[in-house]
């Protein structure tokens, strides 16, 4: 234990805060539940997986914020800014445009999901286009795309524990056990409650770092000067975007923003809101988090000016190292705990979101169509455990040169759900078969493009020839250009083209469209309307509700 000597205060703080996580996570099972409802053993899926769909504005703010701004935010974005400069700031523009982008679409999804009792987008697709095949495809892509994102959180945890001097698998497995325990026990209520703790710790951390910056460094001017000097000598990156890098930047920003609310965990957070107004207000308050992300991204430059070098060649270690060189004792423990909880909260929501998708679109669709609500909850709780195990496998199997690239790969795949899910909220014009063809074409072209992208280390050396990122050079099209585009958006163009052409062909050949079980008014229904079955007061009372598309199925 000699390695740990002198680090008693920080490790004690970390352990105490993780202990608090365990207590809160366990207690959350009974949080905001009606006294009449049964114990934690008697969940139905909407209680466990969506917190009873009854979260008000404050909790929705913390839950969605805690869910979207993950350990990825805290570790990988500053790392990218450290390594590449301006390019890393794509994350800030991306979370700036995402809320106005989904402001109109998300309430429509909320309404149709409440009217029909959906907990996932794949169920919506099933009802909208009348196609179980399309629905299961959407479900599989959603789950597969989420796995690396959960894995990213585990990587975040790993970095924190290593920084604390707690290397090896044991601390990681303990933290993982904690995550599995509170998710299994309390469902979405646990991350919702823990998100508040996470944000509180994170805010303190950011303020401490800014205070240190103001006191000891010469402010942003000197920081930027040091960063500029580094990029002037380096092989890649710069304070500004290179002229050829702008197209890649814009497509990355747009593609990431379009993909964000196609992820099951983002949907889960949004569907748990109690009404449309709650959701819309959240869209205008959540940008507060984006500002915090911007400050965090700039910490990448602070790390440069503080002379921090990546440990073991892993750029992701720079934020923990920055903490280490600026904070001490309990304050350092608190900052590490903020990072760790910042990984646990989203990992929990992601595993719940993916598990809900599995339960409704695979288990109930193909394995047991007559599953009762409590059986659904049981399956979902088990599936959430499996998702986390799958994520660990992803961590062990893939090269983690840049944790952010891993998430970008998942995003490339998830983005292909855009035509069926996002456009589906507005139109049922697309034919189900054309959507399947488009989705498959999009996925294949995405994977092919990712295959063509080598991964390049900070010193300009190629470390791997395939799956090294998501920036696809247009030179592959035979164009004599150095421009590159975000592979996800390029694949989406293929996807949309095939879906549109296929729809025209299907209509021309007279192939019957699927039955649309939704009504235009379903997309504007709100809490209190008679068509909405999921009013919070109803949830706390009876629990025998089944999604309407399940009842109408012949």
């Amino acid at each position, binding site marked *: 234990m000699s390695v740990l000597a002198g680090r008693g205060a920080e490790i004690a703080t970390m352990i105490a805060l993780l202990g608090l996580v365990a207590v809160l996570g366990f207690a959350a099972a009974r949080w905001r539940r009606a006294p009449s409802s049964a114990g934690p053993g008697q969940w139905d899926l909407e209680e466990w997986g969506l917190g009873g769909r009854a979260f008000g*504005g404050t909790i929705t703010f913390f839950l969605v914020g805690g869910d979207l701004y993950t350990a990825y935010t805290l570790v990988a974005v500053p790392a990218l800014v450290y390594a590449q400069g301006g390019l890393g*700031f794509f994350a800030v523009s991306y*979370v700036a445009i995402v809320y106005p982008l989904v402001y109109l679409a998300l309430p429509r999804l909320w309404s149709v999901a409440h009217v029909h009792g959906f907990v996932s987008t794949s169920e919506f697709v099933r009802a909208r286009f009348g196609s179980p095949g399309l629905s299961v495809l959407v479900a599989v892509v959603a789950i597969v795309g989420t796995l690396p994102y959960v894995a990213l959180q585990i990587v975040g945890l790993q970095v924190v524990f290593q920084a604390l001097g707690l290397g090896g698998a044991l601390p990681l497995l303990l933290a993982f056990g904690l995550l599995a325990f509170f998710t299994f026990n309390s469902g979405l209520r646990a991350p919702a409650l823990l998100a508040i703790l996470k944000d509180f710790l994170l805010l303190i951390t950011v303020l401490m770092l800014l205070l240190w910056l103001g006191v000891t460094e010469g402010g942003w001017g000197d920081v930027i000067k040091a960063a500029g000097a580094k990029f002037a000598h380096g092989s890649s990156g710069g304070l500004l975007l290179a002229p050829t890098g702008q197209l890649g930047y814009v497509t990355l920003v747009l593609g990431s923003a379009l993909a964000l609310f196609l992820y099951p965990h983002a949907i889960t957070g949004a569907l748990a809101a109690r*009404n449309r107004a709650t959701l819309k207000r959240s869209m205008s308050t959540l*940008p507060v988090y984006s500002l915090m992300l911007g400050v965090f991204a700039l910490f990448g430059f602070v790390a440069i000016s503080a002379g921090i070098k990546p440990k073991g060649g892993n750029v992701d270690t720079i934020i923990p190292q920055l903490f280490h060189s600026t904070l001490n004792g309990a304050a350092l423990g608190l900052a590490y705990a903020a990072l760790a909880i910042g990984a646990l909260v989203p990992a929990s929501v992601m595993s719940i979101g993916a598990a809900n998708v599995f339960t409704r679109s695979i288990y109930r669709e193909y394995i047991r169509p007559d599953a009762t609500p409590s059986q659904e909850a049981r399956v979902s709780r088990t599936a959430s455990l499996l998702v986390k195990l799958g994520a660990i496998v992803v961590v062990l199997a893939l090269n983690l040169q840049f944790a952010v690239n891993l998430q970008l790969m998942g995003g490339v795949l998830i983005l292909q759900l855009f035509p069926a899910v996002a456009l589906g909220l507005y139109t049922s014009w697309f034919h189900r078969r054309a959507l399947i063809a488009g989705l498959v074409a999009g996925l294949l072209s995405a994977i092919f493009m990712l295959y063509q992208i080598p991964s390049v280390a900070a010193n300009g050396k190629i470390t791997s020839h395939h799956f090294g990122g998501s920036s696809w050079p247009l030179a592959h099209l035979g164009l004599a250009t150095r421009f590159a585009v975000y592979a996800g958006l390029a694949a989406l163009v293929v996807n949309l083209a095939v879906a549109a052409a296929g729809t025209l062909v299907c209509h021309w050949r007279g192939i019957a469209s699927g039955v649309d079980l939704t009504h235009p008014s379903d997309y*504007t229904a709100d*809490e209190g309307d*008679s068509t909405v079955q999921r009013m919070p007061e109803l949830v706390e009372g009876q629990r025998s509700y089944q999604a309407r598309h399940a009842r109408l199925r012949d």
Partner: protein
Amino acid sequence: MFEAPDRRRQPDNDLTLLQVASKSPPPAAGQRRPQSGHRSRWPWLLVVAVVVPLLTPLYNHIQPRLFGLPFFYWSQMAFVGLAACVTAVVYLATKRRGS
């Protein structure tokens, strides 16, 4: 400021009583909430907040600086503020119409 949304629920739907009175799960077309005839133009404001951050030539510059930060960085932080303002304005402007 976020709580009790039901208390300030706007009287946006004069058919509510009619809908509650009807117990049949899939109501007939006439009982559905009417689609508002005149669509609000306020949501078009959202386009501004989405498109401006996509125009990199607009902000890919060092000058002018703010607190020592190059324009590239603080302008993108400002776009976050723009997004917050635009969504808030659209929300406040449209909430009485029940859209």
